[in-house]
């Protein structure tokens, strides 16, 4: 009925129509720049990566369509896949180690900080300070500290009578990755700490007081009240750590070099991808085809696992809240 009356155009309707058009223009003006930038510099390249991965490449020139040939080369060519497998398991090690050391420490720090001890503000700032610094600065700084002869770490060890421990940390395959993981944990631990802390602060005070009146010990409060109720923060940190671990690039690049030295013990998927795409001593010339295929595989892996993890962890949130 309303439509019928609307179909007869009067000057009044025209004014309304004009206003609606102005509104549409206004909305377009607001949305267009952001959408255009995002399409051009994020969505288009992401889509192209898939598109490029099914072509042969010669430098910057696209060759012929070769289907899954690049994927096959990455996954099954024995010259490549030994690197892939090695790098992948290094990334897995990084993820597990960061979960345990970095996030575990962060949880303890957050639980302590939640009591708002003396120096609460100071601790927050101190723990967060490295987070704001560039990985490049952190990487070089620790590379200097870990210098086998002149570095502060070994000098310190020798000074306190642990000279036997003063090994070339970054030069031994057994210790290099561990050292880098600790550096990363030092760099980032403040981040999960403060995310956890914010989550704990969000728990209603009454709940904790009620538990205390019920006679629960501090440990029981942490385990039975705080831990379940901070589940959303845990989900986010686990997923961010996962994505970060499998995109890990800067620290190994700066501290171990592009080839994951010593002897590929610190090689990562990110480094392998860089070498494949842009060329290196071990990977030979730049190859955009296999590089793109590798990128697509890494993306699918990260996307799948972070989606599954989010689902699983989120379901845990619902059950417990």
């Amino acid at each position, binding site marked *: 009925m309303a439509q019928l009356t609307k179909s007869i155009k009067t000057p009044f309707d025209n004014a309304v129509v004009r206003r609606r058009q102005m509104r549409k223009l*206004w909305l377009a003006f607001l949305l267009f720049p952001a959408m255009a930038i995002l399409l051009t510099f994020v969505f288009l390249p992401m889509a192209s990566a898939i598109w490029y991965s099914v072509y042969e490449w010669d430098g*910057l020139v696209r060759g012929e369509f070769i289907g899954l040939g690049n994927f096959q080369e990455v996954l099954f060519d024995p010259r490549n896949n030994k690197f892939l497998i090695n790098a992948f398991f290094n990334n897995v090690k990084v993820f597990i180690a960061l979960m345990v050391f970095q996030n575990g420490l962060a949880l303890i720090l957050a639980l302590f900080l939640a009591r708002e001890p003396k120096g609460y503000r100071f601790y927050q700032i101190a723990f967060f300070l490295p987070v704001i610094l560039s990985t490049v600065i952190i990487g070089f*700084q620790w590379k200097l500290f870990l210098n086998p002869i002149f570095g502060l770490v070994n000098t310190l060890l020798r000074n306190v009578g642990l000279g036997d421990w003063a090994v070339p940390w970054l030069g031994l395959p057994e210790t290099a990755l561990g050292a880098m993981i600790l550096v990363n944990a030092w760099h980032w631990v403040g981040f999960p700490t403060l995310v956890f802390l914010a989550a704990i602060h969000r728990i209603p005070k009454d709940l904790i007081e009620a538990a205390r009146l019920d006679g629960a010990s501090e440990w029981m409060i942490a385990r039975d009240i705080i831990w379940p109720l901070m589940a959303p923060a845990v989900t986010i940190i686990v997923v961010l750590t996962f994505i970060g671990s499998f995109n890990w690039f800067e620290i190994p690049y700066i501290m171990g070099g592009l080839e994951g030295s010593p002897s590929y013990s610190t090689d990562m998927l990110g480094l392998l991808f860089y070498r494949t795409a842009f060329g290196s001593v071990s990977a030979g010339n730049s190859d955009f085809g296999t590089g793109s295929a590798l990128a697509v595989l890494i993306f699918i892996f990260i996307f799948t696992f972070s989606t599954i993890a989010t689902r699983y962890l989120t379901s845990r949130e619902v059950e417990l809240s």
Partner: protein
Amino acid sequence: MANVIKKPGDLGSWLMHIFLGANAVIMLYPILMMALSSFKTNKEIFTSPFSLPRSFSLDNFAVIWSQTNVPRYFINSTIVTGLSVLVLLVVGTMAAYALSRYKFKGNIMISLFFLSGLMLPLRLAIIPLFIQLKALGLVDNLLGLICIYTAMSLPATVFIMTGFLRSLPSELEDSARMDGASEFRIMVEIMVPLITPAMVIAGIYNAVPIWNDFFFPLIFIQSPEWKTLAQGLTAFFGEYSVNYGVLYAGLTLAALPIMLVFIVQSRRFIAGMTAGAIK
């Protein structure tokens, strides 16, 4: 902030203080050592690494100022970060404003479009991005970096700003409409001034990673005159690999500005940098 947990001082709380204190030392001592070493000569670094510098001589800094490209890198980083964040906040706030303040067909679709941008790791699309920027003549060009950083940070910015803009009461908008203000005026004079704290948070959230980024310049910038600070440090490290005092001075200089801002604005920094992870 609320005092969530309180407990009388006992053995446990002593352990807690020791644990927190030790951790603070571990976090701060390396940074302090880096700063102190920057005043030392090479010889001093080797012979007395832990002591205070014999004199707070600025020789190492003078070398950096006069003989390296670090000042130039510094300027480049400032330009890239400044412009990226500026464009980002303007464009991101505009889009967030449309999505949060108007009901229209396609609102949900466009929101999802921005949201999906959050999940795309742009690093993995570096090859097509490289070819694309090459075609646009934006390789080895600060503008190329600005485009990438703006695009990369837009989804999170739109996400953060939408959250804040939604929280503003719609009666304010209605009231301004009754007062005769145009939609543009309502946005600029009424709504945006009310979310400046949110813009600061979103600004920090984006500025810190952009300032610190090393990956994109590594691939897109070759000429020394366009290198950013984080990237330039790698070149600088190659050049001065044996002059430890100068290296420490370079690191200190690179870390100093952001650290100073952080110490003054720590609350906002922490709120800003954890903004994406705290619902």
